[in-house]
């Protein structure tokens, strides 16, 4: 096949994959289109089998790592970690809305950093909302805090976001060095969000709620210890030149065994938490994007992305990444940008992460035309809070993006 045809085919398959991920016809999971698309690209010779094999091989450890983190977070929930976090926040806040917001910020930032943004969105947010309702406080600032921090606070560790996991290997950094370099940008992003939230939601952070005396659930000591040890394990394995995915696997197994033995969960529950269709989707999307970047698009990306680790180039990289993440969602965006930026060094890769992780707060639901305008807006017959979401995004994202990139630039000089 001629080059333009191959190029067009690859792009068409990517568009189809992403289109179906947004539309999800008949409620089918995203993987149902993504996997055949990847297979067809290999069969048609657009993506040579050897290249596909190499890409799958390089994605496999990342996907394993992801699987372990998904299971770990789910088991933490089964051990009552998130419910306990809700009780701690309620007790600590004692009815004061600003204190509660500070505690929500702390919880969301930590959960996102250690157990990934999925855990914050899926497991922590419902707990925060019920806690706010029980304290008879206004829920809006706290709900937005969870959704914003799931993105902004996912800069710290390779495990915090799937985008980080994908970039981790490309960056060539150790787990410890990744964390040390991103600590300052992480804190900067959270700090900026805090300042904006205090001002933006000033009207909702007034008065005093109830100081409800809830009998606290039993402290999930075991889960806390396992998570802490897993966290230490990430750094220790890196020093020992063992893949940090094994630390996550160790943590997941340690939590799973007593849960299964005491029949608090069935094998089936763990399998659901493992989310095999999602793992397959990541693999298939990786292959489709590989086909696209092999045929022309990567050279375009190379031209778009400047080299060097000056503040100016880091900022451009972060802005391009944020823009792309808002157009095509951050997962394909990071896959597209990585090959081009990895050649420019770790600084550029980390700037990409600042862009793709904090950028999605700009538009409702991290875009793909804001998930096709939240799939035909009126399906639920309700007005959606899109304008408020966008206003908050317009205020926070440019500030977070520049401050975090500035912090990264500083950090690269301090940590090296």
């Amino acid at each position: 096949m001629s080059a333009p045809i191959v190029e067009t085919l690859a792009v068409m398959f990517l568009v189809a994959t992403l289109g179906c991920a947004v539309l999800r016809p008949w409620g089918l999971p995203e993987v149902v289109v993504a996997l055949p698309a990847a297979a067809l690209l290999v069969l048609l010779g657009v993506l040579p089998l050897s290249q596909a094999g190499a890409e799958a091989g390089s994605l496999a450890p990342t996907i394993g790592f992801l699987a372990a983190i998904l299971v770990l977070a789910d088991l933490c929930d089964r051990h009552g970690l998130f419910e306990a976090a809700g009780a701690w926040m309620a007790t600590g806040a004692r009815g004061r809305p600003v204190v509660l917001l500070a505690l929500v910020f702390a919880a969301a930032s930590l959960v996102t950093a250690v157990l990934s943004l999925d855990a914050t969105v899926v497991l922590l947010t419902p707990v925060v909302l019920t806690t706010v309702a029980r304290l008879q406080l206004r829920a809006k600032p706290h709900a937005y805090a969870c959704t914003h921090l799931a993105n902004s606070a996912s800069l710290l560790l390779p495990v915090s976001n799937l985008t980080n996991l994908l970039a981790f290997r490309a960056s060539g950094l150790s787990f410890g060095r990744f964390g040390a370099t991103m600590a300052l940008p992480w804190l900067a992003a959270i700090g900026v969000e805090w300042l904006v939230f205090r001002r933006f939601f000033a009207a909702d952070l007034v008065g005093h709620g109830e100081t409800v005396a809830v009998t606290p659930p039993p402290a999930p000591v075991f889960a806390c210890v396992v998570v802490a040890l897993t966290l230490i394990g990430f750094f220790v394995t890196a020093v020992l030149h063992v893949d940090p995915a094994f630390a996550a696997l160790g943590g997941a197994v340690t939590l799973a065994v007593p849960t299964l033995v005491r029949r608090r969960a069935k094998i089936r529950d763990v399998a659901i938490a493992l989310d095999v269709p999602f793992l397959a989707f990541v693999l298939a999307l990786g292959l489709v994007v590989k086909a696209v970047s092999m045929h022309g698009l990567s050279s375009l990306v190379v031209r778009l992305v400047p080299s060097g680790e000056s503040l100016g180039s880091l900022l451009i990289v972060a802005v391009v990444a944020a823009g792309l993440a808002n157009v095509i969602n951050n997962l394909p965006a990071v896959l597209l940008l990585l090959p081009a930026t990895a050649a420019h060094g770790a600084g550029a890769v980390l700037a990409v992460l600042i862009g793709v992780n904090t950028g999605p707060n700009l538009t409702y639901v991290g875009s793909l035309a804001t998930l096709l305008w939240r799939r035909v807006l009126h399906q639920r017959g309700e007005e959606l809070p899109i304008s408020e979401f966008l206003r908050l995004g317009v205020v926070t994202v440019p500030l977070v993006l520049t401050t975090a990139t500035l912090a990264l630039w500083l950090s690269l000089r301090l940590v090296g």
Partner: protein
Amino acid sequence: MKVVIWLVEGTWQGCLAAAVRNLPPDSHVALLHVTPSDITEVAEAATAGLLGRVFARHVPGHHYEEAADQAASQILVAGAARLRREGVELLHRRGRVEREVVSAVAQGVDLLVIARDGDRSRLGPRSLGPATRFVVDHAPCSVLLVWPEEPPGIESIPPPPEGHRPPPGPHREGLPGMPQPPLP
């Protein structure tokens, strides 16, 4: 006289206390609480943005609305108990808060009592929250805006800028033909 008192989390106690001091004795009182309908959507939109996650969609749904409804009825019942009068009507609505409040007082209501919210450390044109501002602007009845706490003193007015010359005064002369005000 039909009076509706809008109760909001965080300020409803103060609002009620201030309302009680200002209510005409023969008034028919209704307490109103609106649960915002967009909170769940904020949370669900974040889940929708996670491409490919099948598991995330199978996690049992959010319990916010249940908890929020419970909180709403607690606030309304506690509010009615504080009023200590007969025949208090309790109104609970769900939706876009500011619009629900305006539509709740659209017919046959003479007075709506609401608490000031907003950032009281920065008084000025935007010192009311957006929902309160909307209700003040659009409510088709009289609106009594009360402080949910101790009102600030007159010293909350910022001092005039440097070099500002106040107009000659005090204007105690009155207008021609009017009786002279007594001197202090």
